[in-house]
C-alpha cells in the first residue's frame, strides 16, 4: 500500500537553496496536478457547450472566413493564399494570447487553494499553457483541411511544426509566469494585460506581411519577438520551407530569455505577491 506513495518528504522552512531551483523541483513533484488541471479545464469546457470539441475547430474557420473577407476583398490585401497566411498567424496568436490571459485569470483559483494547502503556484501557469496547447493541436486539424482545400501541396516541412510549437510554448510560459505573478498581487493586471495583448496583435505580422509596413515603422515589427515566433510557426506551413536560421535563432533566444526571466521573477516574487499584500 505504501509502495505507491510518493517518497516521504521533509519540509524545512530554514533550508537554504536557490529559490528558482526549489520552485522547479516543487513543480516536478506536482506534475500530476498539472495533468489534472488541464483535464479538468478541457472537460468543463466541453461539458458546457453543445458543439464541444467541434467548436474549437469551427471557430478558426469562421474567423478565417471573416478575416479573409475583410482583408482580401475589402482592404485588398495582396498576399498569396491569404486565408492560410492569416490562419497560421492567428492560430499561433490565439495560443499565446489564450494561454497567458488564462494564466492571469487562474490567480483566483490559486489563491483559494493555496490558502488551505501547499501547492507550487507555477502549476497554474503550466496548466494554462497545457490547455492552450491542446486547443492549438485541435485547431491544426481545420488548418490542414484548409491548406489542402485551397490547393496547397503537402510539405515535408510540416514535420518541423512540433519544434515551432515547443519554442512558442517556452516563450508563452515565460510571459505567462510574469503576468500570473503580477496578477496574483494586483487586481488590475489582468485587464491591463488584455489591452496590451490586443495592441500587441496589431504590431505582429498576422493580418499583414512585414513588407507592407513603411520603413520608418518597421523597427516595431523587427524588435517584436512575436514576429519571429509567428514566422517560425508559419514558415513550415505556409512557405513549405524551414524558417531561416536568423529567424529561428531570434525565436529560440526570445523563448529561452522569456522563460528564464519569467521563472526567476516568479520564484523570487510569488511568496510575497501570492499572499496578497
Amino acid at each position, binding site marked *: *500500500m*505504501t509502495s*505507491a*506513495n*510518493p517518497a*516521504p*518528504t*521533509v*519540509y*524545512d*522552512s*530554514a533550508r537554504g537553496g536557490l529559490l528558482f531551483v526549489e520552485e522547479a523541483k516543487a513543480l516536478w*513533484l*506536482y506534475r*500530476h*496536478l498539472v*495533468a*489534472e*488541471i488541464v483535464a*479538468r479545464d478541457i*472537460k*468543463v469546457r466541453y*461539458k*458546457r457547450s453543445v458543439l464541444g470539441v467541434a467548436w474549437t475547430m469551427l471557430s478558426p474557420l469562421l474567423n478565417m472566413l471573416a478575416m479573409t473577407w475583410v482583408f482580401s476583398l475589402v482592404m485588398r490585401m495582396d498576399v498569396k493564399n491569404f486565408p492560410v497566411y492569416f490562419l497560421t498567424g492567428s492560430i499561433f496568436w490565439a495560443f499565446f494570447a489564450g494561454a497567458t490571459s488564462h494564466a492571469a485569470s487562474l490567480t*483566483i*483559483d490559486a489563491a*483559494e*487553494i*493555496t*490558502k*488551505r*494547502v*501547499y*501547492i507550487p503556484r507555477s502549476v497554474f501557469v503550466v496548466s494554462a499553457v497545457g490547455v492552450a496547447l491542446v486547443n492549438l493541436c485541435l485547431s491544426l486539424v481545420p488548418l490542414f483541411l484548409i491548406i489542402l482545400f485551397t490547393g496547397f501541396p503537402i510539405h515535408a516541412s510540416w514535420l518541423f511544426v512540433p519544434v515551432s510549437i515547443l519554442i512558442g510554448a517556452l516563450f508563452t510560459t515565460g510571459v505567462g509566469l510574469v503576468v500570473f505573478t*503580477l496578477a496574483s*498581487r*494586483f*487586481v*488590475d*493586471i489582468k485587464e*491591463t494585460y488584455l489591452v496590451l495583448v490586443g495592441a500587441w496583435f496589431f504590431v505582429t505580422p498576422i493580418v499583414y506581411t512585414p513588407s507592407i509596413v513603411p520603413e520608418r515603422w518597421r523597427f516595431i515589427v523587427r524588435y517584436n519577438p512575436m514576429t519571429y515566433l509567428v514566422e517560425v510557426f508559419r514558415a513550415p506551413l505556409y512557405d513549405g520551407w524551414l524558417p531561416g536560421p536568423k529567424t529561428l535563432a531570434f525565436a529560440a533566444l526570445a523563448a529561452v530569455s522569456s522563460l528564464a526571466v519569467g521563472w526567476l521573477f516568479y520564484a523570487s516574487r510569488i*511568496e510575497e505577491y501570492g*499572499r496578497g*499584500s
Partner: protein
Amino acid sequence: MAAEPAVELAGVSLSYRIPKEAVQTFKEYAIRKLQGRIEHGELVALRDATFSIAPGERVGVVGPNGAGKSTLFRVIARVRRPTRGRVVVRGRVAPLLELGLGFHGELTGRENVVLHGAVMGHSRRDMERRMDAIAEFAELEAFLDAPLRTYSTGMAARLAFAVATDVDPDILLVDEALSVGDERFQVKCHARMAGFHERGKTFLLVSHSLSEIVSNCSRALWISGGCIVQDGPADAVCAAYHAWAQGGTPA
C-alpha cells in the same frame, strides 16, 4: 534510539502584514510607491512557538477564536513560511480539506477525488486504484459519477474525509472537521482515526469541542494570543482551558 520528531517548531513567529489602506491595483501601488506612501501594520498571529511532536503522537489544539490555531496549521502545512524561527516537518502532510477547493462543481465526485489526490501529489492511476475503497468508506458508490454540486454538505464532507485519510499521509491535520456526517458515520471516522494511530501516524486536531480532543488525543496545546499557554496531557490541558473559559484564572 528515539525517532526524529515528525513536527518540530523552534521559535516560530508569524506575522501577517496588514496594509493600512488596501492597495489593490498596480496603478495605485505605483503612485503610492513614488510618493513613498506604502504603509503596513503588523498582526502577530504566532509568537515564538517552540515544541516538537513525535511520530505517532495525537495532539489536540485548543484556544479561543483568533488565538492562532489555524495559523499554526498553516505553518505546519507549508501554506505560510514563518516570519522567524524554523519549522521542520518529516513526512507527508495531508490537511483535511473540503472538497471542491475552488475547483469546478461541474466535475463529478470521481473527478474530484482524482483532483484532490493530485493536490496531495498523487497520480491519477494511484487515485483510481483507491477509488473503490474511498467510495465505500464515504458510502457514496451510487453518487460517484454525479457532479459535486449536486452533493449535500454532508456527502461532500464524507468524501473529503475518506480521501484525506485514504491517501495514507504521515501527518494528518484536522481543523474542526471531525464532526462529519451523522452519528453512525462519526463512529466510522473515529475507528479510522484509531487505525491511523495504530499505524504510528501523527495527527493534529483543532477543535472547540474539548470532549473530541480528550477522546482523540493524548496531548494538547492551549494557544492564546499567538502564544502557547500550556502543553501537556490532553485531559489536564483541556480541564485547565475549560476552567479559564468559564471565567476562572489560567492554571
